[in-house]
């Protein structure tokens, strides 16, 4: 057991939920991350490893150290809470995709070599794209195609960097990179996943179009996996301090403009991940501890915020600030639990962000990077302004509105939110729990009189300024263009010239498969049971047609093709 990669548990569970009946499927989805957590806690310890040689490549699918364990623990917690939140989810493919996505993120975290890393990196992109693709919103499919396109470009860039690294005599071992072309290529690929501007627009484009349950998973894994690989491979690269601070402010500025509640929260992922990226750039022990601690806290409070936003959308069918407001009296529990997440992200004393975000700012103070300290404080004002004040005020408060229908929220959603809220408070009240699992011995003390008092002053006067500017912060029915405008406008020629020809064989194969299932279901005595139903994955014979008929495969293949062509050109120039 001490040499079994934890990803195995998650991938077996992902395969099982496709074939199991509904209740068992739900139980497996919740049990798998809990089992995985038990495996981490009781069977794996720092120094454990499983390695072998394949095709003259030294592979290490399992490498356990304190950095990987910390991310493994929080990914397990996020997987379990997400599965409870998604207990009512009827789509077995969404459940399988969520498990495969969580599993492949865990696979990345425990990969000791670059080849295994790339394998799980690509699996993560494909499985997460399905959470967007099956979102059910009018724009879900096109958003997932763009999401997959961007992540295939990112994955291909990482792969090209790895091949370059191996081709120039580098080892497969995943460790700190130096400033070679291979290192920069890999950093570029990781930067896409970390949503570093201008490579960030996929996040705010895709997450609001995912299913309610899907966006909870999405908020946890992709960007935090990127923080992990940056901490492992690029600690101390000073450019990341600048990029991280830009991220922290960029997310705040765009969140002011947003009307869609999950898009607003998505911009705040960029902002919060900015703190972690900046900390990785500082590279000191306290900074890396800060990046890991804040990633840990962030996965949980951001999951809770997306759960709260999802509960609103589930209950009302509405997702914009302009269409919401005045319903707090009918959603008291959801409001209370959301506010715990909001206080945690705002770094309010006794909540998790207070004990983790400040560790990063403390690291910047120790390194005397005064401009970064000032700008990170500025960004934290923006965080409280949006997630703690603007979003809850315009979603739930204001004049009472009985014209908005508010349906019941499933109990499983509330249970998951209670679990996440308890952790937000737990880490805030007793941070030693988290500090004990950080990569380095902790030297930071969050609860000093000065820190508590100055934080309360900062937040109180942010709230007063919000009150003063309330009329300016109302949602506006607009669309905000971001850097995705560049490839969305360029999308048509790419679609006609590259994507459609590449997609043609997949479309034809899908039509053929659909035809076979239709014929088989006619032949079968009980067409809605037996193997045709199994083939159609529970949704009737038409499902397989819709499943395969317009998947974003073409976008994926086109992205890989274009990226590889660009990198081959680059290689020709530099060689």
């Amino acid at each position, binding site marked *: 057991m001490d040499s079994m990669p934890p990803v195995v548990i998650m991938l077996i569970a992902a395969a099982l939920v496709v074939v199991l009946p509904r209740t068992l499927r739900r139980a497996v989805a919740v049990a798998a991350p809990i089992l995985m957590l038990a495996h981490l806690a009781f069977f794996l310890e720092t120094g454990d490893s499983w390695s072998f040689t394949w095709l003259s490549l030294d592979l290490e699918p399992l490498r356990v150290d304190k950095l990987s364990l910390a991310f493994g623990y929080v990914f397990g917690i996020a997987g379990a809470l997400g599965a409870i939140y998604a207990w009512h*989810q*009827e*789509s077995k493919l*969404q459940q399988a995709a969520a498990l495969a996505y969580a599993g492949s993120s865990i696979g990345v975290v425990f990969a000791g070599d670059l080849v295994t890393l790339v394998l799980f990196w690509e699996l993560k992109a494909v499985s997460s794209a399905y959470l967007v693709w099956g*979102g*059910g*919103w*009018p724009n879900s499919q096109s958003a997932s195609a763009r999401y997959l396109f961007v992540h295939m470009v990112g994955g291909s860039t990482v792969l090209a960097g790895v091949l370059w690294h191996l081709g120039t005599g580098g080892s497969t071992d995943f460790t700190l990179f130096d400033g070679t072309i291979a290192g920069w290529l890999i950093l570029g690929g990781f930067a896409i996943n970390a949503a570093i501007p201008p490579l960030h627009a996929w996040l705010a484009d895709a997450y609001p179009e995912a*299913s*309610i349950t899907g966006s909870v998973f999405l908020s946890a894994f992709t960007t935090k996996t990127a923080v992990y690989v940056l901490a492992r491979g690029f600690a101390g690269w000073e450019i990341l301090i600048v990029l991280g601070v830009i991220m922290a402010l960029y997310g*705040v*500025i*765009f969140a*002011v*403009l947003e009307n869609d509640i999950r898009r607003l929260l998505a911009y705040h992922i960029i902002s919060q991940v900015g703190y972690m990226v900046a900390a990785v750039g500082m590279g000191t022990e306290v900074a890396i501890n800060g990046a890991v601690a804040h990633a840990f806290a962030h996965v949980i409070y951001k999951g809770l915020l997306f759960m709260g936003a999802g509960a609103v*959308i589930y209950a009302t*069918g*509405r*997702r*914009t600030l*302009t*269409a919401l407001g005045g319903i707090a009296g009918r959603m008291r529990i959801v409001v209370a639990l959301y506010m715990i997440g909001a206080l945690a992200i705002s770094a309010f004393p006794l909540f998790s962000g207070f004990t983790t975000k400040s560790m990063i700012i403390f690291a910047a*103070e120790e390194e005397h990077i*005064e*401009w970064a*300290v*000032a700008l990170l*404080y*500025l960004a934290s*004002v*923006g965080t409280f*302004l949006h997630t703690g004040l603007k979003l809850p005020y315009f979603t739930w408060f204001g004049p009472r509105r009985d014209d908005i229908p508010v349906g019941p929220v499933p109990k499983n959603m509330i249970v998951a939110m209670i679990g996440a809220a308890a952790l937000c408070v737990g880490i805030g009240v007793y941070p030693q729990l988290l500090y004990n699992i950080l990569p380095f011995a902790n030297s930071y003390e969050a609860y000093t*009189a*000065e820190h508590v*008092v*100055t*934080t*309360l*002053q*900062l*937040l*109180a*006067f*942010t709230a*007063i*300024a919000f*009150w*003063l*500017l*309330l009329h*300016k*912060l109302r949602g*506006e*029915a*607009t*669309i*905000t*263009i971001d850097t995705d405008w560049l490839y*969305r*406008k360029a999308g048509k020629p790419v679609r006609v010239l590259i994507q459609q020809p590449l997609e043609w064989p997949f479309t034809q194969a899908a039509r053929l498969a659909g035809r076979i299932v239709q014929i088989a279901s006619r032949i079968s005595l009980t067409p809605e049971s037996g193997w045709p139903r199994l083939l159609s994955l529970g949704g009737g014979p038409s499902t397989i047609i819709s499943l395969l008929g317009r998947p974003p495969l073409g976008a994926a293949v086109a992205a890989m093709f274009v990226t590889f062509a660009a990198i081959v050109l680059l290689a020709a120039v530099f060689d």
Partner: protein
Amino acid sequence: MILSRRLLLTTTVALGLSAVVELLFVEQRHRFFLGSDITLFWTAFGFAACIVIVLVSKWFGHTFVMRHTDPYTGESVLDEPSESDHG
């Protein structure tokens, strides 16, 4: 701007409380950057930062990136997008 009596009263009380608590409990102030060790600095920082973020972002948004018509479909942006089966 909504300069109501309630807002002014709240601000005054919050400022007074901040000063009392800071003078009573905070023995040593660190200087993170120029001016950050002045008493009540963080009240001014929170207030000013919030106003700057809102005004600059709104100006930037209205001038450059906010659109009332969807630039990708050409349709007007509604208060609420059409509903769908979003599980």
